[in-house]
């Protein structure tokens, strides 16, 4: 159970990622999917027919659901980055993403790829590569500072300037302008200023739509949010490359576009904001993460080069940060880069810097009396400006109007950089509570720089040890109500009762649960399980009557459910709740049931549920049964008999010789002799054909051949035999 609890934090982030990925399409909320997961787990736990497992899963799930505020980037991200970017890059784009992530996360022991990557950069900058390759080569060069030939860069700069003027699509312009900006930053002696900056600015602006989105090119009617991000970044580049100042009214128009773009932002109920493409098809569909990061990149770079503030609401910026952090740790390198880079841009932007309030633990244990800690960081986990955290109010999640704490400022622990609620109010009993925090900046002018998100609702689980008392188990007669056996159980002492009952009696079981504050406690689960020797088990929900939990098992009504199975039943009690620290599954004892014989019509005993994991086990080996080969005689014997069959033939030949057979009757003249020979050969041929039929031919081939041979044989046979007949008649008549 502890293992699952320890694991759940990591699992939760995975679950959150999956949820995010699905909801970006289906617009599902986080809560329903968590519920879905819960039911799936319930189902699985039910199959395993292990209530202990069910309990643990329930706990894990309910605590998992509580982590609604994602924390800032932590060391988990750093180790994941080292795993994801292992130093083998197929392109400079991938290399740049890896290097940039290492730079942002300040990872020290990164794989050393500078030599090979620099070789590639120099190679690309020295040749006439496509603009996109140049762009990423320059980006890598910005980080690695490779030794690049200055003349080559000058060539590229002039080529890019021409490309900016000729470019017709947004993507081409984005790469050319981006490359020029990079050259400006890397080589100060190269002239990269655009002479016709106004014209370029206008041609990019011409692709914008009324809703703040952009088109990829003038002949493409579809507008895209992803393209808006590219366009804003390109416009920021144009402004920084302009030789003369861009007309302020044009810049203001673009600012208006940004505001309109933020009107079309998507949101979840928990204050998460993100951008998503509205159309699918045509181009490759960009996911919500890459779209959001494109917009973040565009807006932050545009804000950086323009004077004056863009009046974007702070909660939307914070919502974007929440979206990016809520993804957890992406398993894909591109997603990882998009997430980390966007967060880095938000960390230090001119619009408003989001501050993230996070809790190391959202579970407060009454038995341990630890402190409730709150941490406020920037998205990348660095320290926030001087501020105070105020607990505005806290209330039980079932009674929203009844505040248990109001307006309390948390103490700031200077050494650890956390805000601590030192004294937890005494009147708080176990249960789920909603704590409402507020961040108050010491420097009031900071409110324009930072986005704190107003009041932050955090669900807190207050857990404690639940006392089980007055446990009684009794067997009494149905009609008379007289108690036959009554026993008191001490659950802590592992008491074990042995009872016996027949079908005319009832089993009564009751206990009480009290919270540390002495209130009656109603757990999520209270089950009694009766398990027969044959592993057939029956689960009963223990009802709650006021303070007491009790269940009466009337065996007369249960005989059919028990399939008339007499014998020993083990009794187990399960009590579990997310806020109960001592959830338990305990054997109580056993009851010897004497049930009547099953009538003929009674339902048959169902087969025991099969362990679902057994289907993955190896199946029983199949022994194939082949027909035993017939007994064959030894080969020598067969060969002897083969030679024996020749003996009669020899006898036949000897007999013929003794009889003095001769071939004098064989025709002597040419034509009949030929026919005679042909006749003999024909018969021989037919017999040979038969042998072939036996050895390999099939019946149809044989019959065809026999047909031809037969005709031939008939012809020659008729000729020779009629010749012989005529000779013999001549002899006779003579």
């Amino acid at each position, binding site marked *: 159970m502890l293992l699952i609890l320890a694991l759940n934090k990591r699992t939760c982030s995975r679950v959150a990622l999956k949820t995010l990925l699905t909801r970006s399409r289906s617009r599902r909320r986080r809560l329903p999917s968590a519920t879905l997961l819960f039911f799936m787990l319930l189902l699985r736990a039910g199959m395993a027919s292990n209530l202990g497992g069910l309990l643990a899963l329930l706990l894990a799930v309910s605590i998992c659901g509580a982590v609604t505020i994602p924390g800032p980037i932590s060391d988990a991200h750093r180790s994941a980055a080292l795993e994801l970017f292992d130093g083998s890059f197929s392109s400079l784009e991938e290399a740049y993403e890896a290097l940039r992530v290492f730079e942002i996360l300040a990872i020290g022991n990164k794989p050393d790829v500078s030599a090979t990557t620099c070789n590639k950069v120099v190679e690309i900058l020295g040749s006439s590569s496509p603009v996109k390759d140049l762009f990423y080569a320059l980006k890598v060069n910005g980080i690695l500072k490779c030794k690049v030939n200055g003349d080559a860069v000058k060539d590229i700069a002039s080529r890019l300037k021409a490309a900016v003027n000729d470019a017709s699509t947004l993507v081409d312009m984005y790469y050319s302008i981006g490359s020029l900006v990079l050259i400006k930053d890397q080589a100060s002696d190269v002239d990269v200023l655009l002479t016709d900056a106004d014209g370029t600015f206008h041609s990019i602006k011409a692709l914008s739509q009324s809703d703040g989105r952009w088109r990829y090119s003038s002949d493409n009617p579809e507008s895209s949010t992803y393209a808006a991000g590219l366009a804003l970044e390109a416009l920021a580049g144009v402004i920084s490359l302009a030789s003369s100042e861009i007309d302020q009214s044009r810049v203001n128009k673009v600012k208006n576009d940004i505001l309109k773009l933020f009107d079309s932002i998507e949101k979840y109920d928990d204050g998460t904001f993100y951008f998503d493409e509205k159309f699918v098809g045509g181009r490759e569909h960009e996911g919500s993460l890459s779209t959001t990061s494109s917009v973040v990149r565009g807006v932050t770079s545009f804000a950086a080069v323009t004077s004056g503030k863009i009046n974007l609401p702070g909660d939307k910026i914070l919502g974007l940060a929440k979206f990016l952090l809520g993804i957890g740790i992406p398993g894909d390198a591109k997603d990882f880069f998009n997430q980390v880079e966007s967060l880095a841009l938000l960390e230090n932007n001119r619009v408003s810097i989001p501050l993230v309030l996070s809790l190391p633990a959202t579970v407060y244990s009454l038995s341990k009396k630890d402190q409730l800690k709150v941490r406020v960081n920037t998205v990348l986990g660095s320290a926030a400006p001087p501020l105070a955290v105020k607990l505005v109010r806290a209330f039980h999640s079932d009674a929203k109007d009844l505040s248990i704490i109001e307006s309390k400022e948390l103490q700031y622990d200077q050494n650890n950089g956390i805000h601590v609620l030192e004294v937890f109010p005494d009147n708080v009993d176990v249960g789920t509570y909603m704590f409402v925090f507020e961040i108050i900046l010491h420097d009031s002018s900071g409110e324009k720089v930072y986005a704190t998100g107003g009041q932050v609702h955090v669900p807190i689980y207050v857990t404690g040890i639940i006392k089980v008392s007055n446990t009684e188990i009794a067997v009494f007669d149905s009609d008379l109500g007289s108690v036959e056996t009554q026993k008191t159980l001490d659950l802590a002492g592992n008491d074990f009762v042995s009872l016996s009952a027949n079908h005319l009696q009832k089993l009564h079981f009751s206990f009480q649960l009290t919270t540390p504050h002495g209130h009656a406690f109603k757990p999520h689960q209270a089950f009694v399980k009766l398990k027969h020797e044959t592993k057939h088990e029956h689960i009963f929900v223990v009802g709650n009557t006021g303070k007491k939990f009790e269940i009466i098992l009337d065996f007369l009504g249960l005989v059919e459910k028990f399939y008339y199975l007499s014998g020993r039943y083990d009794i187990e009690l399960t009590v579990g709740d997310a806020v109960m620290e001592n959830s338990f599954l305990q054997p109580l004892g056993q009851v010897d049931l004497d049930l009547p014989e099953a009538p003929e019509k009674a339902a048959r005993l169902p087969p025991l549920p099969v362990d679902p994991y057994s289907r993955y086990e190896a199946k029983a080996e199949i022994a194939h049964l082949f027909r035993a080969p017939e007994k064959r005689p030894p080969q020598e014997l067969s060969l002897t008999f083969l030679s024996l069959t020749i003996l009669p033939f020899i006898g036949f030949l000897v007999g013929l010789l003794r009889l003095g057979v001769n071939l004098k009757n064989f025709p002597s003249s040419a034509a009949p002799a030929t026919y005679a020979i042909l006749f003999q050969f024909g018969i021989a041929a037919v017999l040979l054909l038969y*042998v072939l039929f036996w050895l390999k031919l099939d019946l149809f081939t044989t019959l065809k051949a026999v047909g031809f041979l037969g005709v031939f044989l008939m012809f020659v046979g008729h000729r020779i035999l009629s010749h012989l*007949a005529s000779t013999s008649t001549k002899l006779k008549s003579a």
Partner: protein
Amino acid sequence: MARSSSSKDAQDLFRALWSAYAATPTNLKIIDLYVIYALFTALIQVVYMALVGSFPFNSFLSGVLSCVGTAVLAVCLRIQVNKENKEFKDLAPERAFADFVLCNLVLHLVIMNFLG
């Protein structure tokens, strides 16, 4: 005494039979020889089967039936070419031989098919 006289009688009987048979035309004798040859071959196969069992039963059957069938056909031929059988007086022996050959070919086609 009685025994030697009976054996002598038997010897006389055989001698008489043999001399009577010696008068048979040579071509009939050839056919007789052929029939005996076929029957002996069949007999050897039956003995073989009695020794080792009848496992490829179809092979045994075709072997024996080939011999027996040939023998029967040869007997038929002998009946037809025997000049003393007035019944077949008008039938030329060549015609009988042609029938014999044809029947043998058909018989052996079936035998080969059955041989396995």
